[in-house]
């Protein structure tokens, strides 16, 4: 079949001006949206500026208060340690779950079932009151065997260790599921190729499978970190001096409840914003090899 005489024989026409331009239809809906959102935002700003209940002078006074800053430091510290503990437990439990060994799979299942199935608040208060159940913490052989080490539970369990155990074990159970999903997202051929090269199981996991799983693990983990930063406020029930507890202590003295809650909220908002930026860079790092144009056969 021959090309149409008006057309270039190569099927390309070089005159751009003859090609009809495609324009967008008018966007009436968007303009209505802009007016609606604008009105709501104006109202919020107006309230924030004129409503005396916000007491911005009190907020300003306490925003950088030494007590509040100490609370911020503790919140950051607790979040970091809990996430590290959670991550390590999560890796171990996820690997156990995928090991193929019936005993390890059972243990991993039981762990996730229990710590995901009970409320963190209950776990936290439970660990804090561990002394009621076990007056002394001992290391030795159970059922009347010899003891190697012994410490009173009231000494071992502080507000901090109770919060760490409660939040860390719970986080471990959630992280295990996130990591398992990530590991499953890596093609089986990858670990086969690694094995065929002669890598030890540990290397296959650490060098080949886990780095690729990170691409699927990082986004939900970032979500968990951000959630945990705020979730640490639950540790105020065991009187841990974190951000929420620090403002609680202040407003229980001066009754300026709303401005102090705003102080806490501003701090959480600020810290979460920083974490979001960090998450962006970590995600960028682990998408190495997947970036850029697909210039196959170059």
């Amino acid at each position, binding site marked *: 079949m021959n090309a149409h005489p008006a057309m270039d024989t190569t099927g390309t026409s070089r005159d751009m001006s003859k090609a009809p331009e495609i324009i967008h239809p008018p966007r009436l809906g968007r303009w209505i949206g802009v007016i609606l959102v604008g009105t709501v935002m104006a109202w919020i700003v107006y309230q924030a500026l004129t409503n005396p209940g916000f007491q911005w002078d009190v907020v300003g006074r306490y925003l950088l208060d030494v007590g509040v800053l100490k609370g911020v430091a503790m919140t950051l510290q607790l979040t970091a340690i809990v996430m590290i503990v959670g991550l390590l437990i999560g890796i171990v439990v996820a690997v156990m779950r995928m090991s193929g060994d019936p005993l390890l799979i059972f243990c991993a299942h039981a762990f996730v079932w229990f710590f995901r199935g009970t409320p963190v608040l209950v776990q936290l208060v439970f660990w804090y009151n561990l002394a009621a159940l076990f007056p002394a913490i001992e290391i030795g052989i159970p059922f009347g065997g010899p003891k190697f080490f012994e410490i009173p539970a009231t000494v071992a369990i502080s507000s901090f260790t109770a919060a760490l155990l409660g939040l860390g074990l719970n986080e471990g159970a959630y992280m295990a599921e996130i990591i398992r999903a990530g590991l499953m997202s890596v093609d089986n*051929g990858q670990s086969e190729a690694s094995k065929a090269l002669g890598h030890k199981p540990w290397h296959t996991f650490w060098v080949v499978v886990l780095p690729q799983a990170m691409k699927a693990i990082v986004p939900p983990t970032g979500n968990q970190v951000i959630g945990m930063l705020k979730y640490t406020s639950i540790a105020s029930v065991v009187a841990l001096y974190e951000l929420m507890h620090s403002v609680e202590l202040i407003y229980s003295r001066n009754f300026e409840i709303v401005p102090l809650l705003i102080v806490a909220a501003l701090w959480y908002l600020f810290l979460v914003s920083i974490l979001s930026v960090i998450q962006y860079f970590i995600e960028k790092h682990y998408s190495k090899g997947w970036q850029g144009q697909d210039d196959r056969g170059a």
Partner: protein
Amino acid sequence: MRHEQHPLNADRASIMTAAKTDEPLVRCENIWKTRGQNLVLKGVNLQARKGEVVCLLGPSGAGKSTLLRCINAIELADRGLVHVDGVPIGCALRNGSHVRLSESQLSRQRADIGMVFQNFNLFPHMSVLSNIIDAPMRIRRETRAVATNRAYELLRKVGLLDKAGAYPRHLSGGQQQRIAIARALAMQPKLMLFDEPTSALDPHLTDEVLDVIKELAATGMTMIIVTHEIQFARDVADTAAVMSDGAIIEIGPARDVLSRPTDPRTRTFLARSLPDHQQQAV
């Protein structure tokens, strides 16, 4: 560097002198393997001498890949022994019984056997160079300089010297498979296993991979190749083994098996696999 049509040609002189001996490098004896309810291997025997190229052919589901994967213990046979260079693979003799080795003991055995997969399985998060030097550095404890030197030498041989810094995703299937071959060779294996190395490639990309394998065969490397490329098998194989339903139904010199097959199943298989113009030769 791209102008080199046959990048391994330089080595040919030294290659041809590598004499083939009668000592079997690979010996599979009475291999049985079940997967779920299915018997996939039913007492398979296979040998490969040093420097021999064995092609495994046959319809899909015949157990070719499974047999190949038992040779480097990626899968373990239920019964029967695989010996490579006189050493039993996947188990050790203890008190008169054959006991399975641990995963880390298996990894030591696998390091000496190169394997190339249908889907390349390059590590996508590593550059081409890292893909090649990682195992020699980590397993053989080679220095970066030594491993890198050999990597460049291999990249030159497979004709991809300019791709050292690229990531696998940015390469064509044929290029990825040539990198995968270089990666396996970087461990200086005594045996190479190929599991349908061109099945995932577009027809116009298979030749560049097959050429590399042919050149490698000429270097005297012992190879066992699962393939559907009959013409390639004719060109490269010393021995052809045809499998069907978990057993080897015909084995012998490639020229005989692929040109004058005795088993009717082999004839049917060859007739189905060959394009029309090649069938007259059968």
